[in-house]
């Protein structure tokens, strides 16, 4: 697919409606790349003008900061803010709740002030505005879907409804896990846990959460975070349920259901 970078746009004297912040998972992780492509394809389809930073994008610094390495975080933030401010970026959309949280809440006091939205919020807006047109009787009609709240979207930023509204628009049957919304259980990846082995314990957190999702009997687990997606996918594989249960990002579900 053809995706414009900010550098190319700037060269042509164009300004996109929004900067799509892809994030490291979305850029490099094979599974998360599919989410990136699905979301980019939706934007293309509805004619929403966007650009990426491409090679100029760098990690927001979230895992370093939460691990305790403030120096590294500040270095990453400094570089990113230089680039973003250099292009005069006003609005950013991102498919990663960790990037979302850092860009939205932690960059302003470092000099990076942008309107930042998560892709589930943008998808909900585009559906509400009628720009995203969904198939009658799409592939998720009447299917049981359980939404896994990402901590950095939910408790961290109080976004609980946008992803659910998108799922409802797919005519799916939304089934909640025992712990949901503000009580949602973490997938186990946050706080830089994604990048290290678990501390000693009796169970992996992603298995605990996957068991809860499987208990709903839903055929689809919807995620809104590439890290949650990885953790839940691993959990489903661990329980040998990959034939019956699929873990998908909300953007992938929308992309599959569009006319």
């Amino acid at each position, binding site marked *: 697919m053809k*995706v414009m*970078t900010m550098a190319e746009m700037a060269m042509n004297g164009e300004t996109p409606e929004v900067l799509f912040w*892809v994030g*490291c998972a*979305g*850029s*490099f992780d094979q599974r998360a*790349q599919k989410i*990136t*492509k699905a979301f980019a394809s939706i934007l293309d389809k509805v004619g929403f003008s966007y650009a*990426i930073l*491409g*090679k100029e*994008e*760098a*990690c927001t*610094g979230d*895992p*370093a*900061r*939460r*691990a*305790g*390495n*403030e*120096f*590294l975080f*500040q*270095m*990453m933030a*400094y*570089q990113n803010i230089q680039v973003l401010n250099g292009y005069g970026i006003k609005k950013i959309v991102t498919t990663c709740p960790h990037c979302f*949280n850092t860009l939205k*809440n*932690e960059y302003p*006091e*470092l000099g990076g002030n942008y309107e930042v939205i998560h892709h589930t919020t943008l998808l909900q807006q585009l559906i509400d505005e009628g720009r995203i047109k969904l198939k009658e009787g799409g592939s998720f009609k009447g299917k049981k879907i359980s939404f896994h709240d990402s*901590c950095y979207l939910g*408790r*961290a*930023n109080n976004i609980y409804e946008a992803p659910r509204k998108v799922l409802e628009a797919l005519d799916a049957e939304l089934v909640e896990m025992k712990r949901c919304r*503000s*009580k949602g*259980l*973490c997938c186990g*990846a*946050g*706080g*830089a*846990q994604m*990048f*290290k082995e*678990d*501390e*000693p*314990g*009796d*169970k992996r*957190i992603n298995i*605990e959460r996957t068991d809860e999702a499987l208990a709903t009997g839903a055929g689809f687990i919807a995620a809104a975070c590439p890290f949650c997606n990885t953790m839940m996918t691993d959990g489903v594989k661990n329980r040998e349920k990959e034939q019956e249960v699929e873990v998908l990002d909300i953007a992938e579900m929308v992309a599959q259901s569009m006319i």
Partner: protein
Amino acid sequence: MQYIQQIIFVAVSAVSIWLFARKAGEIRRNIFLGKDENLNDYPSRRWKNLLLLAFGQKKMFSNPLVAIMHFIIYAGFIIINLEVLEIVLDGILGKHRLFAAPLGSLYNWLINAFEFLAVGVLLVCIVFLCRRNIIKLKRFIGKDLNGWPRSDANYILFTEIVLMSLFLTMNVTDLVLQGRGNSHYPVTGQFYFSGLLSNLFTGLSDGTLVTIERICWWLHIVGIFAFLNYLPYSKHLHIMLAFPNAYYARLEVQGKMKNMPSVQNEVLYAMQPETAPTDAAPPARFGAKDIFDLSWKNLMDAYSCTECGRCTAACPANTTGKLLSPRKIMMATRDRMEDVGKNINANKAFVDDGKSLLHDYISVEELRACTTCNACVEECPVSISPLEIILELRRSLIMEESNAPQEWNGMFSNMENNFAPWKFSPDERDQWAAE
């Protein structure tokens, strides 16, 4: 005889209030061992939090049944204090039921209301004791409560049952004496629960009844004074500190981590040397190794914690068997403050004891297990953030001690060299678009 009672009463009150004030002063001093932080902005939002979270106990209502039971004890505690005001004045002035005559029928209504609350408190305390000791709810049997904390909780419930029983017995005997026209006991009209129980006491002589009434009166008020002085040593201190803790609660979204302007500037000076002041001194310490490096709010959090364990019950690490318990983080912080406080009392100023909050009270393994998911912060009914303490200690571990698991060191160097936590070439960042 009456004068002796009055003198004893005044002396007991004065001593207990003095002792309480002294300990309260120590707690205040301990809290301000923390770093200064201005939390006085947006007063209207803060008052709203105080009303909703502390007075309204908003977060408790995520479990309505428990919330109502807890509310009965809380309302009982606050409202019955009106009665304590009368008791104190009676004690000082040597009167009996000072408010009965001026308030008239309102007095009867009030005492009846107190009786209903007292019975309510008594019943709820029994239910709460059962939840802890018979039903053994998971969050009450966690190993972080072993020893004193578990006894502390039971002592409090038991004391409240005793205080309420004394209050009711006092009223029953009073009522029987009133019925016999005893001149020391002015007629107040019927009390509902005392009335039900008065048959038990009608066989007793006037003298015995007066003795029981006096003993209950004294034990009740002395019990309250004793309880007041027990509070500062107990988890029960939340009945006071929950209020300021709600007022000074953080107003930002939970996802935002506290910035470190010192590090921000260091990086800025490195990137743009022309902005660096010539006399820039490096920050004294990165993150928190001990309580002195935490904010005063973190320290007040620790004194506000009532060890209910909602945080730990919601913690993904704890519930999957990891060592981390957010409740224990708060308890350890308070223990450290108490130890530092004793050190200051003994030596006039803090003398290094070779210990620190990090390592001696909270281990690396606990800190490493946190997913920063904010479940503990979300759950806390009294606006405590265990997460903030965890993250400050993590900062010290990494930036002061370079103490990181091998995988994290790899992640750091990937971020520095490849701008991603994984070892991919930055040139491949937009490769997905080409496929």
